[in-house]
Every structure is written in structure tokens, then in C-alpha cells.
């Protein structure tokens, strides 16, 4: 079973994502902001991170940069999942090392399609 860390400051979004991803046979962890996510990743690296952008303490992009600078670890696949839906943000995320990008609102089909594209399903 592959593991997915869902990073979002919204409890509702985490719950929705968890339900979809559990149906797709992922083992789910949750983090409430980038700092929380980074701590959890350093303790145990997941296979994939589903990542919100705007969060308190440490935002998604800052988390991604910090994550990608970790050496000697198996880097997870990172899929952004955010309301930021303009080309500038998308480019910035991909340049920082994101593998895929989901623009909210999302549904099961979009998650499935994107996870398929990065070879997770």
C-alpha cells in the first residue's frame, strides 16, 4: 500500500481528500501546514504528498523547496492541490519541483487522472 500525506489547513479538504485516496488504496497521513508536513516527512517519507499552497506557518511552496533540498532521502512525488489557478503559480510550482498540479475544486476523477499521470495508480 502506498502512502500519501495530505497537507491542507482545511479539515474539510483533508477529509474529502482522505476519503477519495483511501478508496484508491492509499494509506493516509494528514498535516495542517508546511512545517507540520516537513516534520512528518523527515520522520517518515511518504510516497506522495498532496499539497495545498496557502497555509499558515509555512506555505506549500516553502515546504516544497525545503523538501526538495533534503538529500539522501527518497524524494516523494508532490502534487499541488490549490485554489491558485493561474499560469504564473503553476509554473512556479513546477519549477520548484512539483510533479503535478490540481486546481481546486477537485473531484475523484481529477485526483485519479493526475495520480495516474505520475504513475501512482
Amino acid at each position, binding site marked *: 500500500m502506498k502512502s500519501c500525506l495530505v497537507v491542507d489547513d482545511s479539515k474539510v479538504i483533508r477529509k474529502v481528500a482522505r476519503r477519495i485516496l483511501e478508496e484508491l488504496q492509499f494509506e493516509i497521513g494528514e498535516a495542517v501546514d508546511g512545517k507540520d508536513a516537513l516534520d512528518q516527512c523527515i520522520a517518515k517519507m511518504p510516497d506522495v504528498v498532496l499539497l495545498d499552497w496557502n497555509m499558515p506557518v509555512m506555505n506549500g511552496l516553502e515546504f516544497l523547496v525545503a523538501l526538495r533540498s533534503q538529500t539522501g532521502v527518497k524524494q516523494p512525488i508532490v502534487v499541488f492541490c490549490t485554489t491558485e*489557478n*493561474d*499560469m504564473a503559480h*503553476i*509554473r512556479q510550482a*513546477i519549477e520548484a519541483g512539483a510533479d*503535478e*498540479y*490540481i*486546481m481546486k475544486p*477537485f473531484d475523484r*476523477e*481529477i485526483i485519479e*487522472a*493526475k495520480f*495516474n*499521470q505520475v504513475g501512482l495508480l
Partner: protein
Amino acid sequence: MRTEDFTFLAEALKQRSGLMLTADKVYLLESRLTPLARKRGLDTLDALIQKLRISRDEALWKDVTEAMTTNESFFFRDTTPFDLFRNHVLPGMLKARAATKRLRIWCAAASTGQEPYSLAIILKENAAKLAGWNVEIVGTDICTQVLEKARAGTYSQFEVQRGLPIQMLIKYFRQDGDVWRINDDIRSMVSYRPFNLLQSFAGMGTFDVIYCRNVLIYFDQPTKRDVLDRMRRVLGNDGALFLGAAETVLGITDAFRPVRGQRGLYVPSDGTSEQLMGL
């Protein structure tokens, strides 16, 4: 809906578009034609049916036919038919057509354009190998409304997230308010025209590759055979035919055979496609 009304509509639709409606699809007729009745200023579906019975209003029949077609589509739908094109069909054609440098592809149920544009993107990514080639993608559909959308090449945020890798969105689309617009260099690779598959294919020319996915499922057996047999006659002997995941030629026609282990790909039974494509 009365049985006689259902029979009347089902028979007319079959004759006009090949669409087969079984009795369990009454709900589909009701849910799709009731809004059309209202749009036409009629109070009920019954009133619409009465109008269809007494008048030869071709424009109204066209609207009915279009309302009953299913137009769901997304980019790189089912993945495999596009991987096979990229990795086998296109390399084969690059060899086989090296002298004429001509490649023609027909998307026979182009819908809102995602399928032909997905192929156009693959061709664009192989542009270096295709320099000096004359490549044509023809997108046809019975429904003129969907073709208008296909021509416009604009898609909602939801549509560009179903099947399109983010790198391709960055590379081949631009944002225009609420919509995502496919770049003109991709858009101009596809020409669209309304076409009913029950019509003669004379005038279509010949093709190297045909995509006819998720349309035969709506036809009865004789119509499926007829369409497939006529497609064989406009496809090169070394060509390729892609059908939808729920469709097959088996038990319908001997004109094509499935390629073993390559889901959705069919080749002329008497042809040479597999060698060419390394399958």
C-alpha cells in the same frame, strides 16, 4: 412516455443517426428532450413529440438528434490509444510514408476536440521528425454544437484537468479569463466538419489512422458492420483503427482484427500494419 411515442422517436433517431435506443433508455429521452421542448417554447415533452409527428421541421429534428448524442470527452482519454500512437503507429508511419511525407488521421467522433488535439500535441512533440511533412487531422462529428466548441479550442478548468498532464497545459494552452485556450499552432493542425457516419465516405479521401471511439456502442450490429466495412475501404492496408474500450470488431466484421495485447487497436485483416508498427 407512451410506448408508441418511444417507438416513434427511437425509430426516427436510428434512421437519422444510427443511435439505438432500447426501452430502458426512456429516462434518457425524457431527461434530454424535456429541456429542448422548453427551449422551443413548448410546455411538455408530449407537445414536442406531437410537433415532430405532424411537421417535417428538419431543424427541430437536428436539435433532437444532437440532444441525444453523448459528447463526453477528455484529453488523452484511456491513455493507451495515445501511447500506442506515439510509440508504434507514428514511428511505423514515419517509415512507411517516408517517400510521400503525407499523413492523414481521421477522428470520426471528434466531439469537443480533446481527441484530435491530443493527437496534434503528440505530433507537435515529434515536429522535428515530421519537418517537411503534410499532416492532416480531420475531426468529424454528427453534432455541430460540439464542433463549434472544438473549433474554438477553449476548455474549462475542469476539462483541462481530466487527462492533460500539467506540463502540456503549460506548453500548449494559455489562460483567457475563466477558460483555457489551446494555442493556435495546435488548433490549426485540426480541421473540423460535421459528418454523419451513416453517410457515404466518398469524398473523405483515404486515411492512415482512424480513431472511432465510443460511437459504435450506440449502433446496432448491422450498422456497426456497415460502418467498419466502409472504414476499411478508406484506410490504408498498413493503417490503424482505434476503437473504444467497450468496443470490438470480433463477431461483427472480418475486415479488421485486433492486435494481440494492444487494447483498442485494430488493423486490416489482410494488411501489414503489425510488422510496420513493431507489434
